């Protein structure tokens, strides 16, 4: 992370927990840049996270009020805090397993209630912290520690799920789209109501390794090549869209 962002980091905590090549460290920087560009006061912000790799993005690193909660329950915790103190600018940062598997019910109800919060879901397509098991966003056929013959089930389209549940701002960007991601996070933070960003991020150690996706740099290049905008996607056939990730405001 660049020096100018260091003021947002909790003093005394120098080492991050990310594996080599993890995209979540990129996301961490992008969130802080968005906050910096909006000149938000960190003393008025509350970061709520759950359990898993992505839950470490704000906690303990961000120098603000941070609540590192139970697995899956982030949005419920955040709801209580926001209802009591509406002045808090609440951001939830957690992973796909946390928000969409064990916490899926709270995710859709947070969106349905249109709770005024920004939810950033780092989607690395598997449970990274526990060693790379299948989760609700793992692509069909993908190899994981609990799907050795390939994932037999379809993944969630998180953005469509949350949009259908009533979120007022929904966007998907990959960590390989830093400028678009910063713009998206800023917009989400400026949105009144439930704003959701699916941040697609590579997990070279747990997911990439098992699916032979190459080194971290190769995974990033692959991610870049697979991202298409919604406008572009409309011009592509179903066959061409296979394995593509549609990004942008949805």
């Amino acid at each position, binding site marked *: 992370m660049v020096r100018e962002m260091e003021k947002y980091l*909790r003093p*005394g*905590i120098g080492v991050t927990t990310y594996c080599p090549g993890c995209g979540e460290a990129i996301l961490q920087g992008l969130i802080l840049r968005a906050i910096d560009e909006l000149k938000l006061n*960190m*003393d*008025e912000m*509350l970061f*709520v996270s759950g359990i898993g790799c992505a839950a470490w993005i704000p*906690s*303990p690193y961000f*120098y*603000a*009020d*941070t*609540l*590192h*909660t*139970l697995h899956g*329950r982030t949005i*419920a*915790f*955040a*709801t*209580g*805090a*926001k*209802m*009591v*103190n509406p*002045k*808090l600018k609440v951001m939830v940062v957690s992973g796909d397993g946390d928000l969409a598997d064990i916490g899926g*019910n*709270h995710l859709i*109800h947070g969106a349905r209630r249109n709770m005024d919060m920004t939810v950033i879901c780092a989607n690395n397509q598997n449970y990274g912290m526990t060693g790379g098991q299948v989760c609700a966003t793992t692509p069909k056929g993908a190899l994981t520690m609990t799907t050795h013959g390939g994932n037999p089930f379809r993944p969630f389209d998180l953005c469509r799920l949350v949009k259908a549940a009533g979120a007022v701002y929904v966007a998907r960007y990959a960590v390989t789209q830093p400028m678009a991601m910063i713009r998206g996070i800023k917009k989400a933070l400026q949105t009144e109501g439930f704003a959701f960003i699916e941040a697609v991020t590579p997990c070279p150690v747990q997911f990439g390794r098992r699916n032979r996706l190459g080194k971290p740099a190769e995974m990033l290049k692959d991610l870049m090549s697979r991202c298409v905008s919604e406008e572009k996607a409309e011009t592509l056939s179903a066959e061409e869209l296979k394995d593509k990730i549609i990004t942008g405001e949805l």
Partner: protein
Amino acid sequence: MGKLTAKSVLPPGSYYFSGDEAVAEGAIAARCGYCAGYPITPATETLERLSVRFGEVGAVFMQMEDEIASACSCIGASWAGAKAMTITSGPGFSLMQEAIGYAVFTETPMVLVDAQRSGPSTGQATRVGSGDIMQAKWGSHGDYQTIALSPWSVQELYDQTINAFNLAERFRVPVFVMAEEATAHLHERIEVGADVELFNREKKPGAPPFGTEEADGVPPMPAFGDGEKLLITGSTHDEWGVRKITHPDIHQRLVTRLHQKILNRSQEIIKYDGYYLDDAQVAVVCYGFTARSALFAVEQLRGEGKKIGVLRLKTLWPFAGELIKDTGSRVGKIFVPEMNMGQVAGEVRKYALCDVVSYGQVTGEIIHPRTIMEQLRRLV
């Protein structure tokens, strides 16, 4: 902060409430700022009343998507500065256990009212039971201490709900009001005084929020937005909340302090009533609604000259072990009637050096005074 006397929110006087309604009014009297819950028999009426009354007093009521979310949102609300409460019954209480452990470990004050019904599982959903007493003690994983109160009347549901908030704020711990369907749905007259004694959590800017110099201390508690840049985690942490999960000493010290902050104040926390104990040869140790039947039964038997007394526990956790030990040394037998298979009787046996006779009834009905009289006649 700390102890204070406040005006009653309800105008002083007599009221005719159900137990569930009394819980709602007790919460309002205690200045509860946030209540979240999920409908469940026999606790629903408290939510219904609060959904109206909280609007009048400017507090936040949320009906959440389940009991897990209810308990978790209370923790968020508590750290945002509000006194927080959730209300449920057995199945919901089971769902809340993980959040209870989190509240214990992060020293989050909150009140949980469990209007107990007959279990296990869905059980007899509309019938009474007292089967959650051990769950209140051991329901979440790991070693911890909480406080559990056992009211026997609608008046006590009101008073004990206020007391539960005071204890939660004083000790930064989840406090359980172990109501029962029989008291939750009972309608009685209660008296509301002009003033109410309250305790509000201590704040001390700049002080560590998760540690004290004393081995049994209760740290001050800042709120989100105070600029304290709080670091809160359910992992083992030092006094500033910094995660320290591989340090044997830190975990040992933290878990020990969370025990000692409650156990070393047992004298202050534990409340009980004794009746006819001076010359008693048998003591009936009881709690909750069953204590009403027990006292009635013992008064009848006193008329027959039977030397029986009643020890009514108003606090179940921390357990009144010393009191039981002392009582046991002065009577020949202790009789424990309860609407479960002997949960408190087992605890009594840990301390009493005399015979302990357990009477467990799980019919979904209250224990009739006649039943207690029959049992006691066999003992005396």
